[in-house]
């Protein structure tokens, strides 16, 4: 992506898109997530040299967390700083789960711009989405499959299942939250 060749361009380009995404622009949101994923891959790869096979899993875990927590984005902050704070939190959490205590020492609030190099590739994590979805309760799985995989609107999914539109939304949110918990295990 030539338009985010340097970290600062990355932020300026991302911020406008991100604000549109926050307001509900789905296409902008998709582009944001793609750019963020590429940056996260570079950031995490550098910090996880001892765990190369886990990089893509953590990229995905972080993307899920970003999605669930996007209400906590503070528009006064750079998007990249917010993204990296969450990525670091996920990295520390991973290390803690692996029983590792070193490498946790750089300041949490510091944005290491050099770590923002983009790595665009078609990342493949080891975990399998279809298997994960099977672990969700039926109502959550169905709501996610209909609206998020098959791409039905909430209204269509509501007609198909007989559940109300707000119930579908709640099930999707709960299902994604549970997915985020499942991928941590």
């Amino acid at each position, binding site marked *: 992506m030539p338009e985010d060749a340097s970290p600062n361009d990355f932020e300026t380009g991302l911020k406008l898109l991100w604000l549109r*995404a926050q307001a509900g622009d*789905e296409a902008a949101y998709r582009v944001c997530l793609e750019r963020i*994923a590429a940056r996260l891959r570079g950031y995490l790869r550098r910090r996880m040299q001892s765990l190369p096979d886990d990089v893509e899993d953590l990229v995905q875990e972080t993307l899920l967390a970003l999605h669930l927590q*996007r209400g906590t984005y503070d528009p006064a902050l750079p998007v990249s700083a917010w993204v990296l704070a969450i990525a670091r939190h996920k990295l520390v959490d991973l290390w803690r789960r692996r029983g590792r205590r070193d490498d946790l020492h750089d300041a949490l*609030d510091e944005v290491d711009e050099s770590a923002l190099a983009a790595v665009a590739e078609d*990342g493949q994590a080891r975990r399998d*989405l279809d298997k994960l979805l099977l672990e969700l309760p039926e109502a959550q799985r169905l709501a996610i499959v209909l609206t998020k*995989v098959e791409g039905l609107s909430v209204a269509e999914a509501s007609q198909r299942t007989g559940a109300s539109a707000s119930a579908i939304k709640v099930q999707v949110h709960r299902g994604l939250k549970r997915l985020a918990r499942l991928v941590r295990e």
Partner: protein
Amino acid sequence: MKTATLIDLLARGAGPAPRLVPAALAGVLLSAALALAVLGPVPAAMFATPAPWLKLLYTGALAVAAGWLAARLARPLPRLQRPRAAVLAVLGAMALLGGLALLATAPGERLVALMGHSALACPWNVAALSLPALAAALWALRGLAPTRPRAAGFAAGLLAGALGALGYALSCVESSPAFVAVWYTLGMLLAALLGAALGPRVLRW
């Protein structure tokens, strides 16, 4: 799973970012009301004196400041200067007031003013009353994205402590500002320390 697949999944029908509903706050206030209901209120005549109003003002102001701090700590990269200054200002103002009140007391009566008749029970009562609010505040924070779990736990504990103390103030008959400055504050700090101890364990997401 390919990351592109996940991005498709997340972006499809994503809609606008959810607003952070103060539902969490409602839960906290509810548990404060519960704490309040457990204890009988002070004799109504006491409300003619400044003592209960001072306690309500102090704990209420601290609850607002600590709630602000906790709300900031619920987000990644919290900006803390102003809420932290607010918390310190409330604590400092009460300490100053308590100190001045003590200076204005005759030297022979200072110890009585400081200790009242319930000095050793007060902090524990405040801390105990804060527990439901602490559980609610931690639960609310857990659903958000605190990246500094110990600090977030501390703020949640301070908020809960202030709410517990607010409830306790309605049934406490002590009248000395020095008593409030020392023992109420101690009880609220107990709750805050408990929150800080629980934070790293509870606030994982």
